[in-house]
């Protein structure tokens, strides 16, 4: 619901993402701050932002697949891994520019994801969701057992830095701009997708796949598409990861990583792109706090003992996620929207 005084005068303006002047202003300020960030904050913060941007790309993809299309996906880290490996192999063996490897990484991950999505033609519900776990195991097995000249096997692959016109993307600042640019494109694209006929088809399939079919939506193809798009995002995120770390190994993409991506969209709220971003921010910030203040607490609160402090940190992380699910099962964005709508209709209770 729009605040009073805001109305659209054309269909095009009616489908805008940014609807009020304040939102526009906030967005501009936010982007400006992001662009200026390397000059404002320390390298540590930039490194955290790098991780957040990469996670954001992956979580937004998961949001499209799980939050919009309703397909629980526990293979997102495997899809990310496929992207990371594709980018690494292309960059290290063919010397292809990152301008090509990043989209190609997305495409190869998308194809892998699509394979699992194809099973949607027959498998439904939880059964479908749980088959994505198989993606995780098959990816792991394939990397380790294919000839190591293909995917590096247990050796992993070293990745040359991204390069553009003689500029090498090494060091957190230059990588930050690369990640920011890619993340901005991907997130803007996500808004485009979810507001297009595809986004509507996803929601339709999620809410009522019987009715969706009768509306002329190919339900199985739509689910497969959701996996395809979700995996594409994961692949792009994986490529960014490969260029950031510049070494990929199969143990960087485990089921546990997938679970954390799911946790991010739970905390942020299902079915909202902004929610995915909020979730990434919350989870990553908690992880960073654990890593940052943990050693200090362990040293200063000696009577507690170091390992208890750190174990406690894991509890905090799990606890925050559980709290969100108990108190706010629809995520932070849902609460925000309720607040917003009750503010806008105030003082009437309906």
């Amino acid at each position: 619901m729009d605040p009073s005084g805001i109305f659209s005068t054309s269909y095009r303006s009616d489908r805008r993402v940014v609807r009020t002047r304040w939102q526009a202003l906030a967005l501009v300020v936010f982007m400006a701050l992001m662009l200026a960030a390397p000059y404002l904050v320390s390298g540590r913060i930039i490194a955290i932002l790098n991780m957040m941007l990469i996670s954001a790309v992956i979580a937004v993809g998961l949001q499209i697949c799980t939050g919009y299309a309703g397909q629980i996906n526990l293979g997102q880290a495997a899809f990310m891994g496929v992207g990371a490996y594709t980018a690494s192999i292309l960059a290290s063996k063919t010397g292809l520019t990152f301008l090509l490897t990043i989209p190609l990484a997305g495409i190869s991950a998308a194809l892998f994801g699509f394979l699992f999505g194809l099973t949607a033609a027959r498998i439904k519900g939880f059964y479908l969701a749980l088959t994505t776990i198989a993606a995780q195991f098959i990816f792991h097995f394939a990397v380790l057992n294919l000839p190591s000249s293909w995917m590096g096997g247990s050796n992993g692959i070293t990745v040359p830095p991204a390069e553009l016109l003689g500029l090498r993307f090494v060091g957190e600042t230059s990588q930050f701009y690369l990640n920011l640019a890619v993340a901005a494109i991907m997130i803007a694209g996500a808004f485009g997708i979810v507001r297009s006929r595809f986004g509507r088809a996803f929601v339709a399939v999620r809410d009522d796949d019987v009715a969706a079919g009768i509306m002329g939506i190919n339900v199985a193809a739509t689910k497969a598409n959701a996996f395809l798009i979700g995996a594409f995002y994961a692949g792009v995120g994986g490529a960014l990861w490969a260029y950031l770390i510049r070494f990929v190994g199969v143990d960087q993409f485990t089921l546990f990583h997938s679970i954390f991506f799911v946790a991010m969209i739970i905390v942020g709220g299902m079915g909202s792109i902004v929610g995915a971003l909020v979730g990434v921010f919350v989870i990553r910030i908690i992880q960073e706090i654990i890593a940052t203040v943990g050693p200090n607490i362990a040293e200063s609160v000696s009577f507690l003992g170091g390992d208890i402090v750190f174990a406690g940190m894991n509890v905090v992380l799990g606890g925050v996620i559980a709290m969100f699910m108990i108190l706010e099962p629809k995520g932070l964005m849902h609460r925000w929207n309720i607040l917003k709508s009750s503010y806008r209709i105030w003082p009437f209770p309906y």
Partner: protein
Amino acid sequence: MTYQTKRGLRGFLAAGAMAVAATMPLKAKAEEIYNLALLSDFSGPYADIMPILAGGREAVFTWWNETRGQDLGVTLNYKNYETRYDAAQVASLWPGIKSELDPIAVVGLGGPDVAALSERLPEDKIPMFMATAAYGFAWQPDAWIFNPRPTYSHESAGFLNWMREQRGGDEPFKVAILASEASPAYVDMAKGLELYAEEHPKEIDLVEVIYTEVQPTDLTGQMRRVVRAGAEALIIQTNTSIVVAAKRGLQANGANIPIMMSSHNGLPASGAALGGLEQLEGDFEAYGMAIAADEDTPARQFYETLVTEYGLEAPWNVVTAMGVSQGLYTVTVIQHAIEANGAEGLTGEKVREALFAQTITTEETHGFLPSLTFTPEAPFPLEGLKVNVGTVKNGKITIEATGVDIPEVKKW
């Protein structure tokens, strides 16, 4: 693992407190202060050994500051960073470490540190020193990440040659290896030994390579195959749970094939997990580092010194030995760098140069490590490699052999 965690914990805390207390007044005396970044995992998979490992390495820094550092006019400060054993966390921490500490060296822990920093360290010109054995995948020239021990496959090859000599005879020594695909590092261990066996058919006959889960359901059938193949030794460098499951499998088959373990899943840890060291009677642990046995060795004496004078509270075991040896060769390299360049203006690059310039003698590491001669060809010494063998005799860990030569192992 084996030791009482609480004791280790107190040791760790005391060491930390001592370190803080000890470095404070020294700052006034010493002219130069350099920083070390310590990567730790207090909340991830290695949380159980971390307090002890950390206690060991920190005690060494305290000892060095008070003895050598004072003379040289240098104080080494250090700070622990929590990595949760996660490459993403290391990557996001690193720029902060660099700007906050500007360390001259990083004291690393494991795979994620290597993955996240292997391409960053050469750019930033800071070397990293690990405690563990090396991996085949890190075997590259011009390294910035170093291991005091060769690869796990080197260590097992050295052990097997020693076993073959003990046995006598000309026929190849039959051996089985138990690996897991749960981690690429475990696969790497198996791959190296596989290649070595292939290259040396007259010495080693690798009769079985068995892959299993990190917490196996049951290995009775697999162990029967090992027995039937006539294996004379079983190499398990993966983890404690697999050692326990394999032991139970062997017991079920009524077989007594000696198992060789590595440092991180060694005799004390596996013995405790089995419910008693006596169950591992006649089994071995082998690695290129001092064995933490009851015997009175230089290493043991140095450990006692750390305990009595520098507040180390960790028990005498392999994990402590790992921490102490990591600390010792790190400070020795730095000391070499100071001796060569003077106390002022020390950089990571100079520390790395010093590593190649001078052998780290076994005396300098108080017998914790053999003499280490690093070259730019590999991240670990390629020459003069030794492995030590420990075993359980009468329910006690004893040193079976020290300074066993490691044969040449080809890169895989």
